[in-house]
């Protein structure tokens, strides 16, 4: 047959096309099954992920270059203004921090009195978000540190204003995280004002969370701050998540229709913080 010469424009039939196709379909289904059921394929994922890494860097480079150009061409005047602003901000934050230290000590003392077992003390590390969009069906982002730096699956990510999301897949040098606004994400929260516990569910809209499990008579109102309750185990307690922006109570329905706006600027963040939470014994802390 002429086909053996490998001429691409040869109108002859492609040999064994159907067979190859069926084999590949079978392999795909097997892979999906294994991937969905167990995590046997993390190694493969990581290997291919490392191969895609230079490409991610290449896509990220122009955006980074732009940012660098912007930084290096900022006028002196602007820089001075910014410096002044930062100084003022630091002063404020420091003042608040002083009080926090006192409160922390007091909290530790009280807990020691109550013989409370342990408390979570957090260690953070800053990571940069790579200018890479991933999965079209989910709200997620890619950060520039991975398992090499100790990132683990399920790790909490926050920015300066609140909770951003959590790591879902750790590569060697990058990691993928899901945002709290993802339609598949749910987060145990509590109302800061009265400790009312509920669950904040992502909607797929970047600026909206739903609180679907609040009864009509729940004590919640617009403007309430929601913080993580720490009950799910993934997120340490006490980080701001969202602010309630509307509460609609429909008499016939068992649950109120409550929506909230995430505190973190989910679609604008460039730098995030990863939290390593480890329990430490309060007694030791109190002795310090």
């Amino acid at each position, binding site marked *: 047959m002429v086909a053996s010469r490998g001429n*691409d424009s040869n109108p002859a039939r492609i040999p064994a*096309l159907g067979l190859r*196709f069926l084999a590949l*379909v079978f392999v795909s*289904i097997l892979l999906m099954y294994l*991937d969905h059921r167990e995590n046997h394929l993390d190694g493969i994922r990581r290997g291919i992920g490392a191969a895609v890494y230079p490409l991610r860097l290449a896509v990220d480079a122009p955006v980074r270059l732009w940012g660098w150009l912007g930084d290096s061409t900022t006028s002196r005047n602007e820089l001075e203004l910014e410096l002044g602003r930062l100084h003022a901000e630091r002063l404020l934050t420091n003042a608040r921090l002083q009080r926090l230290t006192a409160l922390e000590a007091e909290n530790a003392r009280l807990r020691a009195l109550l013989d409370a077992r342990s408390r979570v003390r957090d260690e953070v590390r800053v990571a940069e978000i790579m200018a890479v969009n991933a*999965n079209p069906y989910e709200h997620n982002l890619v950060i520039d540190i991975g398992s090499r730096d100790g990132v683990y699956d399920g790790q909490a990510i926050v920015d300066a204003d609140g909770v951003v999301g959590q790591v879902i897949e750790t590569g060697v040098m990058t990691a993928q995280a899901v945002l709290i606004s993802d*339609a598949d994400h749910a987060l145990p929260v509590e109302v800061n004002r009265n400790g009312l516990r509920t669950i904040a569910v992502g909607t797929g809209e970047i600026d909206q969370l739903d609180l679907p499990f609040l009864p009509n008579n729940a004590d919640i109102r617009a403007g309430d701050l929601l913080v993580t309750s720490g009950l799910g185990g993934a997120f340490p307690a006490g980080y701001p998540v969202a602010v309630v922006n509307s509460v609609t109570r429909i008499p016939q329905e068992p649950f109120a229709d409550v929506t909230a706006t995430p505190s973190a600027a989910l679609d604008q963040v460039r730098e995030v913080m990863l939290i390593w939470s480890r329990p430490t014994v309060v007694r030791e802390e109190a002795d310090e």
Partner: protein
Amino acid sequence: MSRDRTSRRLPVIITLVVGLMLTIMPLPESIRAFRPDWLALLMIFWAMQLPRTWSVGSAWVVGIVLDVSYGTLLGQHALALCFIVFITVRFHLLMRVFPLSQLSATVFALLAIYQFLLFWINGVAGVVAPATAYWGPVITGTLLWPFLFMFLSGVRYRASSGG
């Protein structure tokens, strides 16, 4: 022979790498759902033109790379891409003689099948996504096809004339 083959594959590989870069490039949240399936379009074109070199096997590999960079179920895009490339290769002779309008309609159907398979697998795996995430790429992909087709034909002739 092997050098000849490499030089013939290189342009295709370059287009695929550029396609992957466009796929993972960040877009504003508002138009993100309308990002065309660059790699699906490219694979349809190359499978139509060079079905012996770019067939179901390469489509599967491209799909796996796509799965890893998206973080979707490993094999999801591979299966969908493999399927539409299979159809393309099966009917490549027919598709080559189609006028551009008819070809665009065919591409629309292929992209719709592609998205439907992804939707289906997402459904089985329990991934929820808004409907625009599926329809957006089909529409933009079809609108882009004529331009992409002309551009890639240019690439193809330049590559095969050894320039």
